[in-house]
C-alpha cells in the first residue's frame, strides 16, 4: 500500500509560520518580479505562478508580497522526510528545484503542495489506515504542517485521494475501485506538461474518466509517449514505483535576531558561538562534517548564501569558525541580518588519524647523503654538489647560487 501525504500551499504556510503573517492576510511569494507561490485566498482570486507581481497586486491588492526562500523550503521538506522516516525508509518526495525558473513551477500541482509518497509494501489494509493517521499526526506535531493523506495500492490514486481530501483526514481507495474513484476527478491532477493540459482541455476532455475512455492509441497520438503513461494513470494503473529519497544527515544551527544586525563584528561573534555549538554537537554524535553552508536572511526578506567544501572533514570549533568567517567575507550583505542558518553536511564518523610511524626519519638530504657516502669513497666517483643559495637578488646569475661539494 502507498500512503500519499499532501501538504497544500506548503511554501506560503511556511512563510506564514516564519514571518508571523496573520491568516486573514493573503500572501504571495515572489521570485524576482514574478509570482513563485501563493496562499489559498490569493489562489482563489486567480493569482497564479509566473504572473507578474503587478498583475498579482491588481488581482489581490491587500496581499503581502515577500521573497520566496527556497533554502528554507528545502530544509523544512527534509524535516518532514525525517519525521516520516520513523515509519519506513521508502519515502519519495518531489525535490524542490535549486532556482525558480520562469516556466517551471517549484511545486507539482495547482495547490503548490509538497507531496510525499510512503511505500508501506505489503502491510494489511486494516493496519494501513491507523498508520497513515499516525503519520499525519506525527508530521503535524513535529513540523506544524497539516496535510491530507490518501491510501491506495499505487501512487497516482493515492495522490488523487489525498488531493480530494480535507486536511487532517485520510481517504483509502480499495483495490479495484481506482477507476471508479478517478473517473469524476479533473484531468489537471495528472502530472503532465502545460501544453498537454491545454491540448486536452481544447479537445473537451476535462475529467480523468473521459480521458481513460479514449483508446490508448488516441492518447498516444495526441500526447505522444507521455500520453501512454497518462492514460494508464487515468485508468488507475500506475507503473511508477516509490523511489526512496536519500536522507542527507546534516547538523544545522539556526539563529534569528529581533533587530537586524548591521555590524559585521557582531555577526562574526555569533558565528563563533554557532561553530562552538556545532562542534559540541558533532563531538557528542562522534561525527565530522565536510560541506559547510552559511545562509543569511536579510532585512526586507532577501537572503544570501555561500557554500564551501572543506579539504577534509572537521569537527573542531576553530576550523569551523575560520571557514564560517571566510564564507561571511565572501557574502555581499546589503542590509541588516535578521537571521542565519549554518548547515554542516557530508557527515562522516570520526576516523582514526594516521600517526607518523617513524618520526625520526632522516631528512631527504641526509638520506641521500648516506647513500652517496659509499659511492664517493670510490676513486672514480663523480663530483657531486649540493646547491647552496647565496644571494637570490644578486644581479649576476652566477652569484645567486653556489655549489657545495659533497665529501665522502
Amino acid at each position: 500500500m502507498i500512503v500519499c501525504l499532501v501538504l497544500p500551499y506548503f511554501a506560503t504556510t511556511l512563510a506564514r509560520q516564519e514571518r508571523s503573517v496573520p491568516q486573514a492576510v493573503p500572501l504571495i511569494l515572489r521570485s524576482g518580479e514574478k509570482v513563485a507561490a501563493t496562499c489559498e485566498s490569493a489562489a482563489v482570486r486567480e493569482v497564479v505562478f509566473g504572473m507578474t507581481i503587478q498583475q498579482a497586486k491588481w488581482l489581490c491588492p491587500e496581499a503581502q508580497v515577500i521573497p520566496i526562500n527556497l533554502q528554507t523550503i528545502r530544509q523544512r521538506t527534509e524535516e518532514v522526510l525525517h519525521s516520516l522516516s520513523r515509519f519506513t525508509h521508502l519515502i519519495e518526495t518531489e525535490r524542490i528545484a535549486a532556482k525558480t525558473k520562469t516556466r517551471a513551477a517549484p511545486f507539482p500541482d495547482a495547490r503548490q503542495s509538497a507531496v510525499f509518497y510512503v511505500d508501506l509494501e505489503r502491510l494489511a489494509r486494516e493496519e494501513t489506515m491507523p498508520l497513515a493517521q499516525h503519520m499525519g499526526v506525527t508530521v503535524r506535531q513535529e513540523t506544524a504542517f497539516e496535510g491530507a493523506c490518501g491510501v491506495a495500492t499505487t501512487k497516482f490514486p493515492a495522490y488523487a485521494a489525498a488531493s480530494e481530501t480535507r486536511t487532517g483526514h485520510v481517504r483509502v481507495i480499495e483495490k479495484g475501485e481506482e477507476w471508479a474513484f478517478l473517473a469524476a476527478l479533473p484531468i489537471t491532477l495528472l502530472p503532465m506538461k502545460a501544453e498537454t493540459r491545454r491540448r486536452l482541455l481544447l479537445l473537451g476532455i476535462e475529467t480523468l474518466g473521459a480521458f481513460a475512455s479514449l483508446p490508448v492509441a488516441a492518447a498516444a497520438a495526441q500526447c505522444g509517449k507521455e500520453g501512454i503513461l497518462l492514460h494508464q494513470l487515468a485508468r488507475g494503473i500506475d507503473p511508477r514505483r516509490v523511489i526512496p529519497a536519500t536522507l542527507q544527515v546534516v547538523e544545522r544551527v539556526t539563529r534569528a535576531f529581533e533587530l537586524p544586525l548591521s555590524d559585521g563584528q557582531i555577526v562574526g561573534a555569533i558565528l563563533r558561538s554557532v561553530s562552538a555549538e556545532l562542534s559540541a554537537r558533532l563531538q557528542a554524535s562522534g561525527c565530522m562534517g565536510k560541506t559547510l553552508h552559511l545562509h543569511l536572511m536579510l532585512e526586507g526578506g532577501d537572503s544570501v548564501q555561500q557554500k564551501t567544501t572543506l579539504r577534509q572533514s572537521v569537527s573542531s570549533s576553530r576550523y569551523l569558525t575560520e571557514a564560517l568567517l571566510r564564507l561571511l567575507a565572501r557574502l555581499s550583505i546589503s542590509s541588516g541580518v535578521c537571521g542565519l542558518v549554518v548547515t554542516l553536511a557530508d557527515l562522516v564518523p570520526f576516523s582514526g588519524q594516521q600517526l607518523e610511524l617513524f618520526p625520526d626519519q632522516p631528512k631527504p638530504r641526509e638520506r641521500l647523503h648516506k647513500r652517496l657516502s659509499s659511492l664517493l669513497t670510490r676513486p672514480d666517483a663523480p663530483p657531486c654538489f649540493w646547491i647552496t643559495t647565496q644571494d637570490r637578488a644578486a644581479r649576476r646569475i652566477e652569484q645567486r647560487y653556489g655549489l657545495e661539494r659533497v665529501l665522502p
Partner: protein
Amino acid sequence: MNKDKKQRLEEAIVAIRREYGEEVLRPLGDSGAESAVPHLSTGFATLDRALGIGGLPKGHLTQLSGIPTSGAMTLACKVLAQATGEAVVCIDLSRTFDVDYAARCGVATDNLLLIQPPTLDHALETLTALVDTAAAVVLVMDTVEGKRRVNTPALKRLMAALHRSRCALLLVERAGTPLLSEKAAVRLHFQRERWLRQRQDVNGYRTQVRILKNQWGRSDQSVRLVIGFSTVVQGDGA
C-alpha cells in the same frame, strides 16, 4: 554504438577486471578518474590530461627530447618542482644545468643534488645507487654521449632498481638514444614553434610536445605549451 553492443562491452570489461584486476583496463582519455599509476604532475594541465595518468610515471623512464630551448629541460624542472619535500637529483652529463632557471621553475634547490659524471656509464652506475632515495631524477645528456654505446647490463640493473623504486627518471637529450628509447615508458618530443615577443623583447616561446610513446594512454598526439621567461614559467598554451 548501440545499446546492446555497449552492454556487451561493459560485461566484457567487468569480466576482464574480475579476472585480471581493476587496473588492467582503463578507457583512454579518462582523465577525470583518479589514476592508479603513481605519477608526478608536469605542471601543465593539458599535458597531464593528454598523458592519461595525470603526469609522468614514477618507477619508469621518461624520455624528453628536443633541441635546446624547446622546453624539454623546463618540463624536467617543473617535474622536479612537483617533488616537494623529497630529494631530487640532476645528473648533468652535458654540464649545462642552470640552477637559477630551475629555481625560477619552482625547484627546491635545498634538496637538489647535482652530479656531473664524466661518462654515461658512470651516470648509470650512480643512478642505480640513488633511485631508491630520490623522488625524481633528471638525467641531462648530450647528443655526443648518447651516440656512444650504452652499457646494456648497467642499463638493465638501473631499470630493475627503477621499477622497484617510486622515483621518476627523466632523460633529457637532443635526439633519442635507441636503447634508452626502447626502455622508456613515455617519450615526448619537443619542437619550438615560435618565439613570443613583447614589443622588441623575446619573453617566451610556444612549443609543441608530441607524445611519441605512452604506455598508459594515447600516443601520437600533440599538445602546445607556452613557456615564458619572466619570473615564473607560465602555464598551458592553446
